[in-house]
């Protein structure tokens, strides 16, 4: 223990090392603060929208909630708000929450024409990516490690102390391992300290905090292992620094960017556009065919309305909403294919973790924080389920031709937030574990050789 304290004092005497650690601590704290405030802003925005929506809903109630009100009009003019609040860990990893909408209003019309609406996003602000803990972890923490590790061995040689150190009666390599361990621990302390405080403030679940911390530890350990490996190589400090920065450029900037280019070419997602085009054809074609062509499949799907689904030649709300539901059903295959292409992109991104620990850490932290593409798809699923509730709610009024009054507005279903879709994907975690263990294995072998 004494030795560790001695190493600590020795390390912190170096001005560059102390500055790098302090800077990392400050940036991590600022990022956690920024994440907490971004998270609070999103929650506040959801509340603000909910207030506006309540006014709009009240106006619709007054206008269409007459004693002889028609459910057809009410359903056409009433919007229902859905929202997706940030998870308690989102403050650490905002992910796509800056570009994916987290408020969406739907009504009883075809869902596929409503589900992909975009909210107001300032694309220029979204372009560089959010400044959050995940950014500090993935981009900046490795650089702090590089500053601390690049002259681990060469610094001693350049100061003329290396021969003296090798004469000490310790097991070969132990000294370097101890020093690397101290550095790794300090970086993790500076990095994770603010995060843990933030997690307490946000009341994040312990399991998620533990997984996120584990990811941070493995990821930083990878860089420390790499630093030890390069540092033990026996080259000059400047060369080591350049090599490690080179590794950083390749693993953090280049491989992900290359992989993204490959992925967007290999798995195109134009089907989203195709399915909206197809849905429009399905819905509008229904105006030009006999009513029966719409009502027959609708009744087959909803036998409970069999006796009440007869409509004449003119316009009827029963037929109108049946047509919208059938329009959605008509593109169900395309929706599934579209979703599959999005899921494929996500799956390949996770596999990419084997090539770049940065990509592995990125997909892990955002999956745990429930703020990635998959999280948004989970939100869409929940909106889809809510839309079914709307159908279940309005159809009895429509088909039994019951009046839709003021009281009935109050009975309308209210969107229930989705449960967390947070998970721990095995592939990137395994990749990160293997990569960081191999880096350390390489480092240990290198460190042993240095002394002998």
């Amino acid at each position, binding site marked *: 223990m004494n030795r560790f304290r001695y190493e600590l004092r020795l390390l912190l005497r170096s001005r*560059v090392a102390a500055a790098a650690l302090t800077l990392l601590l400050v940036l991590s704290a600022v990022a956690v603060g*920024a994440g907490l405030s*971004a998270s609070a*802003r999103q929650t506040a*925005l959801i509340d603000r*929208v909910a207030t*506006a*929506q309540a006014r*709009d809903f009240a106006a619709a109630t007054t206008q269409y909630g007459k004693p002889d009100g028609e459910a057809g009009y009410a359903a056409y003019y009433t919007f229902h*708000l859905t929202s997706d609040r940030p998870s308690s860990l989102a403050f650490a990893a905002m*992910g*796509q929450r800056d*570009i*994916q909408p987290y408020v*969406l*209003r739907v009504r009883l019309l075809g869902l596929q*024409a409503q589900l*992909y*609406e*975009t*909210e*107001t996003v*300032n694309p*220029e*602000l*979204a372009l*560089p*990516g959010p*400044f959050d803990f995940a950014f500090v972890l993935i981009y*900046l923490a490795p650089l702090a490690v590089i500053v601390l590790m690049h002259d681990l061995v060469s610094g001693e040689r350049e100061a003329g102390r290396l021969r003296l150190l090798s004469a000490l009666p310790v097991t070969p390599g132990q000294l370097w391992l101890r020093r690397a361990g101290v550095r790794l621990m300090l970086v993790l302390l500076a990095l994770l300290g603010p995060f843990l405080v933030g997690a307490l403030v946000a009341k994040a679940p312990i399991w998620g905090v533990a997984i996120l911390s584990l990811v941070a530890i493995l990821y930083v350990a990878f860089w420390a292992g790499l630093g030890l490996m390069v540092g033990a190589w026996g080259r000059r400090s*400047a060369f080591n*620094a*350049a090599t490690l*920065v080179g590794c950083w*450029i390749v693993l953090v*900037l*280049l491989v992900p*960017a290359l*992989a*993204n*280019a490959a*992925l*967007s*070419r290999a798995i195109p997602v134009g089907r*989203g*556009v195709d399915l909206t*085009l197809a849905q*429009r*054809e399905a819905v*509008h074609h229904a105006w*030009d065919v006999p009513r029966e062509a719409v009502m027959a499949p609708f009744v087959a799907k909803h036998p409970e309305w069999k006796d009440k689904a007869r409509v004449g030649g*003119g316009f009827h709300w029963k037929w109108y909403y049946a047509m919208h539901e059938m329009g959605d059903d008509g593109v169900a295959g395309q929706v599934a294919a579209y979703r599959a292409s*999005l899921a494929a992109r*996500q799956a390949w991104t996770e596999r990419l973790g084997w090539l770049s620990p*940065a*990509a592995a850490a*990125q*997909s892990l932290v955002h999956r745990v924080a429930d703020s*990635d*593409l998959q999280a948004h798809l989970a939100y869409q699923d929940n909106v889809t389920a809510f839309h079914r509730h709307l159908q279940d709610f309005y159809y009895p009024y429509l088909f039994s031709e019951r009046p839709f009054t003021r009281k009935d507005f109050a009975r309308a279903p209210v969107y229930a937030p989705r449960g967390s879709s947070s998970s721990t994907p095995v592939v990137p975690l395994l990749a990160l574990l293997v990569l960081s263990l191999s880096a350390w294995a390489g480092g240990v072998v290198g460190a042993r050789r240095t002394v002998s």
Partner: protein
Amino acid sequence: MSGRPSLVGRVAREEWRALARNRVAVVAGLILAVLLAGSALLCVEQRNAIEASRERHQASSDRQFDLQPDRHPHRMVHYGQFVFRPLSTLAFFDRGVDSFTGHTVFLEGHRQNSANFSEARQSSLLLRFGELTPAFVLQTLAPLLVIFLAYGAVASERERGTLRLLAAQGLGASDMLAGKLLAHGGAAGLILAPAALALLIAALLGWAPPGPAVLLLVIYGLYLAIWAVMAVLVSSLARRSRDALILLVSIWMVLVVLIPRTLPEAAARLRTQTLTRIETDIAIHADLNKIGDSHDPDDPYFSAFKAKILAQYGVRRVEDLPVQWAGLVGMEGERLTSQLFDRYAREAFAREQAQNRFVRGFGAVSPVIALRQASMSLAGTDIESHQDFLDQVERYRYAFVQSLNRMQVEQIPNQGAGEDPRIAAANWKRVPSFAYVAPDVLRLAGGRIAANLAVLIVWLVALLALCAPVARRLREDAR
């Protein structure tokens, strides 16, 4: 700084020779050249694929519209029209915000739908690491190569003790500094060469607009020159080359990685929040209700409108109108809604621009911000180009809806039209289709491009102005 040309040239030549002998430098340079050329080729191909798919969608959507059967024109107002944003040719060089903005808009009557299906919303988070375009390589990676080549330019002479030796042989400090600057400026030019080639070929083939292509070269040239001068200056001031490297990489970290990321957060927090679409929709709906209710026979606004129309046609009752009254009311309603759409869109864009101005103001602190702005503007992939597209789309939407409404006014009988009145399908071909006019970026964003160009020039001039005192320092050191 007065330099003797022959000596300056010799210093530069020596530096070049040293760089050429440095195997790591040559390999790094080659890798960057491959990355640049490769990303340019890939992005041209990718840009063409995106453009082709948008064109195909547009054509098939237009065709489908024309093929619709006999219908009531109001049905066609809601059948609507899809428009797809064409991608500028220079988007291959800098994708800008294109991946973050939707490119598909569904147009219909009395609703303004959002632009949907942006690439970023449909990608995994991988996209947020950045897209591998020539702009990304030049903005992010090229400065690192410049730093790597130049960090030892003067510092290693100092370390080896040759600084004093050279001074003793009569080489003045300013001559040496000028030579090193010339060498590394030249190296920066060489780094830019593959991108320059790509841009010039694109311009010469008439594929890309020549003015913006050349200006792109100019701003990236300035940007790399800024890094070259900065690297040589830091190298001149550092005691050891290792210190110079660490300092330069730190500067790169702060300017290229850190500042661009932190500013948006500050902008979002400091500036007024933008209104969500939902709030905008609700506000427009409320405003419309305030103007009047066309279904209410006693409504003042629509009573006045009715009186005006009756006077115009010289009849006493709407039933006597020679044109369809409901269609006229529809046209008036569309006019009112459209005015509100325009007003709210303008306000929203102004709020967005206020946030962006905050970030852009920091161009003075980080030349990367000025460069990115200018680059996106020149490539036609900036937020203004997108807004220009949205404006064109809204103008078209209005014309499109009103042309259908006019058909209703003129062709659907005012009285006794029957239960299911329709007009001939041939009418749909007469509805104009969307013809996007690609903006002249120099006209659309000329002021902003000039401002950002000025920021880059000021940076370079300021750094060059620092050369004189640095040369003085060197002279003192060599004594």
